[in-house]
């Protein structure tokens, strides 16, 4: 081989080697680039995922805020409702108390109405006394009591009714001095607080109420003992005593007048019949 051909061949071989080397380099570069592209793709995908996660968490925060606001509003509403419920409950209790008061008042008025009705339902003297006795016995609950009139002529008491005690114990009692005397003089009723332990003293009953026509005391109702189940006086009892003080006195007085006038009329009629015959 010609030395110049050998050089040329060597040169060609060298170029071929360079060419191979370059091809290898380009190949490695291409592979490197491909890897980079793959990594880039992966990173882009992960970036997109991350962005998506961040985006959704930012949306939940808004929802939470909204829900917290709703909870706050509902809590305010609940407290308002609880307050209004307490007001209605208090009002309801007030109504119940007032209903009980009205019911009691109604029952008291019934007693007073019946007592008043009966007192003025008859002009018979004995019937009037019987009605007063029943009122004191069955409405007030007294066991031992007396009804007496003031005898202006003798200035002593004249018993009309003596329930559970001898009428002699009241007869001839003076109208001055003692509880009965004070009640007749003043026209004011006498009450004691403790009605369970009353002692029997004819001139000093535990309860004594005057029988009055206008300002004039014509007699008294004296109570010495109550039924064992009667522990204390109620408001209705005081109302009944007030009623008896006025209405019983008028009923007694009117029926006495009527009875006396009927008797006188019968006497006169009898006399006329005698004269005529």
């Amino acid at each position, binding site marked *: 081989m010609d030395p110049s051909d050998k050089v040329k061949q060597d040169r060609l071989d060298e170029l071929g080697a360079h060419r191979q080397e370059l091809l290898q380099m380009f190949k490695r570069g291409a592979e490197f680039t491909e890897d980079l592209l793959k990594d880039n793709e992966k990173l882009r995908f992960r970036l997109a995922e991350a962005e998506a996660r961040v985006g959704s968490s930012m949306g939940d925060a808004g929802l939470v805020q909204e829900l917290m606001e709703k909870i706050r509003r509902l809590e305010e509403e609940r407290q308002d409702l609880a307050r209004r419920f307490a007001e209605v409950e208090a009002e309801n209790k007030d109504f119940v108390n007032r209903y009980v008061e009205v019911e009691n008042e109604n*029952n008291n008025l*019934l*007693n007073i*109405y*019946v007592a008043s009705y009966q007192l003025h339902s008859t002009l018979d003297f004995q019937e009037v006394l019987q009605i007063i006795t*029943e009122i004191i016995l*069955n409405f007030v609950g007294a066991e031992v009591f007396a009804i007496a009139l003031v005898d202006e002529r003798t200035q002593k008491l004249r018993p009309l009714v003596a329930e559970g005690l001898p009428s002699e114990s009241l007869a001839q009692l003076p109208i001055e001095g003692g509880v009965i005397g004070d009640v007749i003089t003043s026209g004011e009723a006498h009450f004691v607080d403790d009605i369970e332990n009353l002692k029997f003293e004819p001139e000093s009953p535990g309860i004594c109420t005057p029988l009055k026509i206008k300002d004039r005391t014509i007699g008294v109702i004296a109570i010495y003992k109550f039924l064992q189940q009667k522990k204390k006086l109620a408001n209705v009892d005081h109302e009944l005593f007030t009623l008896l003080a006025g209405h019983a006195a008028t009923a007694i007085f009117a029926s006495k007048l009527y009875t006396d006038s009927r008797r006188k009329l019968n006497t006169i009629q009898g006399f006329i019949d005698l004269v005529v015959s």
Partner: protein
Amino acid sequence: MAEYTALVVEDSPTMRQLIVFALRRLQSLKVIEADDGVDALKKLQVQKFNILITDINMPIMDGLKLVSLVRKDETHKDIPIVIITTEGAAEDRQRALALGANAYITKPIQAPQVINTVKELLKL
């Protein structure tokens, strides 16, 4: 229209009026009055009653006798009977309950006591 009829037997007009007025608050109850046991028996023969309220101490025929006769009457043998008594009359009360009375009211009588006793017995 009243669903039930009550017979109130009491010789005292005052007490009878109180009991009748109290019971008239019950809308479903019609109230008939009798002034003693004999009058009550006459009324029981002509009319059916759902409840009987009677005093014990009455003239002509007392409440114990009345209770005893009512319990022998076919029409009224099962009606509720309420007796009116005083706290101290325990013996009368026991006898009345033994004869068939269902409940008792003690004097002094209060309207709520009457109403509640009748409501309980008639299940109003």
